[in-house]
């Protein structure tokens, strides 16, 4: 009895370990202005603290959280939990996730309830506990305290998450994050969509976990909810560098948010004024304490403002003095508006710059100037030529042609890498099995093998060219070109129109679906914490990822249908066509070239 009790206490207080980041530009903002020293090593987050990660849209807050959790390639960022590095180089020299490090955190992504898949709350919680090899009794204790943390009795264990409301599902998902003994907890917008009571419950639980020595890193746009309990603030800039400061310092220097490319929220401005006018920093974060401290006394205010003006070398002291002066209200409004506009322009320019840098890497293709119909026709011609190839030598030449076409057109097939690799593996395995079956003697018959592989390879060449089409043509312009190709006397049969729209929209959503699938794969890794690649593990992964994926797909489908309806699609039988495609000389050139290639390939096959 005594033994179990001791063990439980140990688990409730997981061994505190720091989280250390290396390889990221960061500086401490707390020190005096002008002397910011940038470092790339040893950004330490201490256990028993709450860190709030703030930054403008697109700076990569979620990406950073996912990197901490090992759900994205490290890209030079070394994350270490205590002594355990998150990534280790394996025998082959490739980086592999360290399962011991994965067990050091628990991660609630945005809308975590979308990742639920079990048929009872109990199963869901047990799933999160599985990587930790706990005794049954301990698991039960943990489950019950996690349920209590979200305000539920133990009887909720048997409830089915699918029969719950959205808010209840969120609670279940949060409970399954709180249930683990991991010393670090990451939360991405934990309160989005929660009601007032939910905000309070989560806040109380986070403060409790902090007292128990856990470290917490979170992203939240409800800054007036999150900042009061944060010990530190990490300001993530568009260029990926980080400014670290304490909550108190941010209250003194709200302009640091503007430097980071964000707007200072009104409430924070108010808390700052209160401090400027003599309120205690410890009180200004809580609105009730702040009301208590509300004592607009000009003299005290003036004094502190002057002090600060000296400190900041008049940098923004001017503004505070003006803010106290309501006679100048109008001009201040204008001044603020001007500042905001400048800020906005700066931020937009910054977003642009970073985005442009990112996009420089993948150069755009060269096919934009062509009529989509000519690209389409050329594709049909060349693939017909490829299809006629009948021996390995001509296939080799065909491969060179395909490679040359993709290179000349500057088309990168990187987006389809996974698909291409899978297809290649599938072809080889199928050919082996076929050759093994064909021999009938348990030996692999070489000719059967090469014969099957040949067919696969030829199809692969056509596939590679075909995969390039959605990359060089937007689905809507593809739709336009198909419709104009089959137009008979200015009209298109109703069924064809519908079919083409469906197909092109499906193409449009392929990247969205891939993104969704990756999202649930990440949730699976964050919860399951297993890297094993045996067939059983892969089968389980498929199941655990595909259920939430399909549900998300239905929701997405609902929204797409709504959006289409509101655009009038489906009601209007004969939409107008604003853009008439025009053939140019180069289009004739492209088709002629493709025809010549096709004839050449045919000649090659019949030499």
């Amino acid at each position, binding site marked *: 009895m005594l033994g179990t009790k001791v063990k439980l206490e140990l688990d409730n207080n997981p061994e505190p370990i720091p989280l250390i980041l290396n390889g990221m530009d960061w500086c401490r903002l707390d020190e005096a202005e002008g002397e910011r020293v940038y470092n790339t090593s040893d950004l330490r987050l201490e256990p028993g603290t709450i860190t709030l990660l703030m930054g403008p849209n697109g700076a990569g807050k979620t990406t950073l959280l996912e990197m901490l959790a090992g759900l994205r390639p490290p890209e030079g960022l070394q994350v270490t939990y205590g002594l355990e590095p998150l990534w280790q180089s394996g025998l082959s020299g490739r980086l592999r996730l360290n399962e011991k490090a994965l067990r050091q955190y628990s991660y609630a992504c945005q809308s975590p309830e979308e990742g639920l898949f079990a048929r009872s709350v109990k199963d869901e919680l047990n799933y999160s506990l599985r990587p930790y090899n706990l005794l049954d009794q301990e698991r039960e204790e943990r489950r019950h305290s996690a349920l209590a943390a979200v305000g539920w009795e133990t009887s909720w264990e048997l409830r089915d998450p699918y029969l719950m409301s959205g808010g209840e599902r969120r609670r279940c998902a949060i409970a399954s994050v709180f249930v683990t003994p991991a010393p670090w907890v990451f939360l991405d917008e934990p309160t989005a969509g929660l009601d007032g009571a939910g905000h309070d419950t989560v806040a109380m639980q986070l403060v409790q976990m902090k007292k128990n020595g856990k470290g917490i890193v979170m992203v939240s746009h409800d800054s007036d909810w999150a900042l009061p309990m944060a010990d530190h603030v990490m300001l993530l800039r568009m260029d990926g560098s980080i400014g670290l400061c304490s909550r108190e310092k941010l209250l003194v220097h709200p302009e640091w948010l503007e430097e980071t490319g964000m707007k200072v929220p009104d409430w924070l401005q108010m808390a700052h004024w209160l401090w400027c006018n003599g309120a205690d920093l410890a009180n200004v974060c809580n609105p009730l304490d702040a009301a208590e401290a509300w004592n607009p006394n000009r003299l005290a205010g003036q004094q502190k403002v002057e002090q600060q003006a000296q400190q900041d070398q008049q940098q923004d002291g001017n503004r505070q003095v003006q803010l106290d002066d309501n006679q100048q209200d109008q001009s201040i409004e204008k001044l603020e508006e001007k500042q905001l506009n400048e800020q906005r322009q700066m931020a937009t320019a910054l977003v642009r710059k970073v985005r442009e840098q990112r996009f420089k890497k993948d150069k755009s293709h060269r096919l934009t100037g062509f009529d989509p119909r000519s690209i389409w026709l050329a594709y049909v011609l060349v693939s017909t030529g490829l299809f006629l190839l009948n021996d390995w030598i001509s296939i080799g030449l065909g491969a060179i042609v395909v490679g040359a076409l993709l290179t000349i057109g500057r088309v990168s097939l990187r987006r389809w890498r996974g698909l291409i690799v899978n297809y290649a593996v599938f072809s080889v395995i199928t050919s082996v099995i076929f050759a093994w079956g064909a021999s009938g003697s348990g030996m692999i018959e070489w000719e059967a093998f090469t014969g099957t592989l040949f067919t696969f390879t030829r199809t692969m060449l056509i596939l590679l060219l075909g995969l390039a089409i959605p990359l060089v043509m937007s689905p809507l312009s593809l739709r336009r070109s198909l419709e104009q190709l089959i137009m008979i006397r200015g009209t298109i049969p109703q069924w064809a129109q519908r079919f083409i729209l469906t197909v092109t929209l499906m193409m449009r959503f392929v990247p969205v679906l891939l993104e969704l699938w990756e999202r649930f794969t990440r949730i699976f890794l964050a919860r399951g914490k297993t890297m094993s690649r045996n067939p059983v593990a892969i089968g389980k992964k498929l199941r655990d990822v595909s259920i939430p994926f399909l549900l998300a797909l239905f929701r997405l489908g609902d929204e797409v249908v709504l959006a289409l309806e509101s655009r*009038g699609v489906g009601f209007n039988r004969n939409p107008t066509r604003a853009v008439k495609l025009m053939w140019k000389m180069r289009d004739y050139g492209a088709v002629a070239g493709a025809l010549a290639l096709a004839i050449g390939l045919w000649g090659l096959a019949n030499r």
Partner: protein
Amino acid sequence: MELQAKVPMVLNRVSLSGQNELGEPSVRLEDINLTVTPGEWLSIVGVNGSGKSTLARLLAGLQLEHSVGEITRGFAGEGICPIVLQQPRAQLFGETPREEVIFALEWRGMAADQIPLLGEQALSKVGLTELADDPWEKLSGGQQQLAAIAAATACETPLLVLDEVTSMLDEMNRDIVMRTARELHKRGMTIIWVTQRLDELEPDTRVVALGEGRVIFDGECREFLYGVSVPGEPAPLSPCLRVGLRLPYLAAMALELRLLGKLEDPLPLTAQEWRKVWGNAGDKG
């Protein structure tokens, strides 16, 4: 047509029941009475699952077939009104803002020779002229939402419904989207703004708060946050808390200040009002 433009949209005892994932019936809206006046800005708030999205869709003229009760569409007309949703990725069908707007105009059946000009106008209304031919990856979340708004409002439309369009945006992007919506409103468009973020509420606009599918509050924003205090009676409970939403910092502080006797009605709401209150109090002290 002229007359029709001034007739309000009226929902009279409208209920709507749907099905949950098991196919069991569940009530999503119950006994809604609501009047939308042409040209107004109406904010709809409520916690998740309160029915605010369902109501927004109903007001846009979608999913009417499942509803019972009487709906007079008035100025909004009989067709479906444009609605912009939370996730940009589910509602953008083109690859660039221009393609998106043209797609919308084509399906609205505009004359082909007018479409390029109309598209240009729609893009400039939301300030996307410069970015018209950039792919989505180059646009921020806010700019993607602007493109969706441009596509939705490319044709003259009396009513625009925006369903939690800022929930995935930071403050700066949110400002841009809200400003654009306000400009459309100034041009005479009726705006239904569904949100869960109370700091988006404009001080003197109308707020409708939903709870469990019912209208719990319908009135001015200030009243929604602070309630109406009656002299001689205890301080009123904020309708905002009644529908289960979290009071933002400034509103919570204002209520506490009233309780402590440091402030009196009307309590401040905007940054400007707060500054004024602060200045006056300072003068007294």
